[in-house]
């Protein structure tokens, strides 16, 4: 009797948790569905090649916003990747006593800071002294967001490289720094690239810090010291406007943005599949 009751409870809880999992997945399907449904109809060649048109006039595209996002990602990577990878190596290899612990702690702190606060920081130390909004300021803000992710991922992966590899290289008389650069890093390369792709996926969609750094631009950017358009900024501006044509373009932009993000995540996964399957 009691056994049947317990088995019943088991079934109920199994179904409830399964239901929870389903409920969680449901919004994703709804959102993606809407994106594809609304956005695909507005996607055409114009969207990818044309600049925005003046208020109220139909047509135009988000070409500058797409290029702008790629530019900002490139800039952020130039600033964030070297610092992140070198810092990650430091955390994994250093024999210092207290600094690594502090850096690790602060990296986690930085990871949790809302991106809008990082935007305020970038505004105060880049935009104000330079007296202008610029792609540089936007790239800086995104680099700060990207830094902790790259840092921690690199640290983890460098640690995972077997000590025997290092010991073998050192036994051959290779200096320590060459061991790290030529033996350890290449071994960890695939995983580090995953970390990079994950951080790129994260910063591609960031809007808040760009509001007062990159500022937005209705034209092609004229160099890195000028304001620049970005896909999430444009989507935001169009979404809250009343014009139906802009709404359609916002959906299309959102679709393009999601495709970019998913693609980079997917590629990262494929590149590292099989290499670290036992270690995840």
């Amino acid at each position: 009797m009691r056994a049947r009751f317990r088995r019943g409870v088991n079934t109920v809880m199994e179904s409830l948790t399964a239901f929870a999992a389903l409920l969680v997945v449901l919004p994703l399907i709804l959102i993606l569905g809407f994106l594809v449904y609304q956005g695909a109809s507005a996607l055409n060649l114009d969207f990818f090649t044309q600049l925005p048109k003046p208020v109220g006039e139909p047509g135009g595209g988000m070409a500058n916003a797409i290029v702008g996002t790629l530019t900002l990602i490139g800039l952020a990577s130039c600033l964030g990747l070297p610092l992140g990878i070198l810092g990650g190596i430091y955390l994994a290899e250093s024999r210092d006593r207290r600094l690594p612990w502090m850096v690790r702690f602060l990296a986690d702190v930085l990871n949790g800071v809302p991106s809008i606060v990082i935007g305020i920081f970038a505004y105060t130390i880049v935009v104000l002294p330079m007296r202008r909004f610029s792609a540089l300021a936007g790239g800086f803000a995104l680099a700060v967001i990207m830094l902790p992710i790259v840092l921690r991922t690199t640290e983890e992966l460098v640690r995972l490289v077997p000590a025997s590899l290092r010991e073998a290289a050192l036994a051959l008389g290779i200096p320590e720094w060459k061991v790290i650069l030529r033996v350890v890093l290449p071994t960890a390369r695939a995983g580090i690239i995953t970390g990079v792709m994950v951080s790129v996926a994260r910063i591609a969609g960031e809007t808040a810090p760009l509001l007062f750094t990159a500022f937005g631009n209705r034209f092609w950017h004229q160099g890195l010291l000028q304001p620049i358009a970005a896909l999430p900024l444009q989507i935001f501006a169009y979404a809250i406007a009343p014009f139906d044509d802009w709404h359609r373009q916002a959906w299309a932009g959102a679709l393009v943005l999601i495709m970019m993000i998913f693609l980079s995540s997917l590629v990262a996964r494929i590149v590292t599949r099989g290499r670290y399957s036992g270690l995840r």
Partner: protein
Amino acid sequence: MWTSAPVRRMLRLALLGLAGLVLTAGLAPSPVSAQMLMNGAGATFPYPIYSKWFDEYTRVDPNVRFNYQSIGSGGGIRQITERTVDFGATDGPMTDEQLKSAPGELFHIPTVLGAVVATYNLPGDPKLRFTPDLLADIFLGKITKWNDPRISAVNPGVALPDQPIVVVHRSDGSGTTYIWVDYLSKVSKEWEQKVGRGTSVNWPVGLGGKGNEGVSGQVKSTPGAIGYVELAYAIKNNLPAPMVRNQAGKFVQPSIQSTTAAAAGAAKSMPSDFRVSLTNPPGDDAYPIASFTWLLVYNDQSDQAKGQALVKFLWWAIHDGEKYTSDLLYAPLPAPVVKLIEAKIHQITFQGKPLLAAR
């Protein structure tokens, strides 16, 4: 199959290639780098006409591009004060305090006239009209339902639903807000004391929308909503632009003519810095909630090439630009005002020398 070694190698190569592409896309100058970029920010009120002007102007002078971000008049004032943009735009004139805190002398250059309308969203699209005290009390939160007897009193014969009124105001710093609350302060003592004037006020009730775009978007999608937007935003979104009773007691439709009539008196007594309020003017045909909108430029420009481009554009705007206003339901500047502005533009200098040669 997808994860076999040769495929992975290919993908890694593709990744490297993409990374290279991204970096070059960013670091290489854009294809049209020979042009000069002028950055401006501010009011959403004139954004429809400004975006038209900046688009047309690329044909007039292909060497300059004007990038304008409509972030609200508050933003325009702030950013030009910080000198992070080349020009600002506002429909709420800067206060003396704000002018004092700017690093240089700022000019207010009027560009067009516009009207702020009390747009709403009701089923069946009834044609309503409002009186000043009605508007003040709705926005004070004292009138909360559409079928309130005071509204029916002013709109005899119109069927009003038993629906709550959803007030929509601006969430950002706005010149449109300034025009609206300036008007309400003039027609309602209670509003003046309780809320007052400013580009950003402490609203008694309502939802906040970002920009004229946000407010019209919110009104359009919320049945029972009422908000204040520039006339162009209402018309372009098929939202009503109701009549309002003016100081002379007549119900006037917002239009180019009634906006122009509102400015008729101002032209005669225009202050030299052009900071004037046109709300609640005398005159039978005047629409009571109209205003100039201004571009904010420094008296002494810090960059000669940019200063030249700016004055040339301003000259074009107040003369040729005015012919685009009627399509977008803005009213052109009255001729005597244009003369005064011309004189002002001649006063814009670079290192003491006027940028525009005297004509």
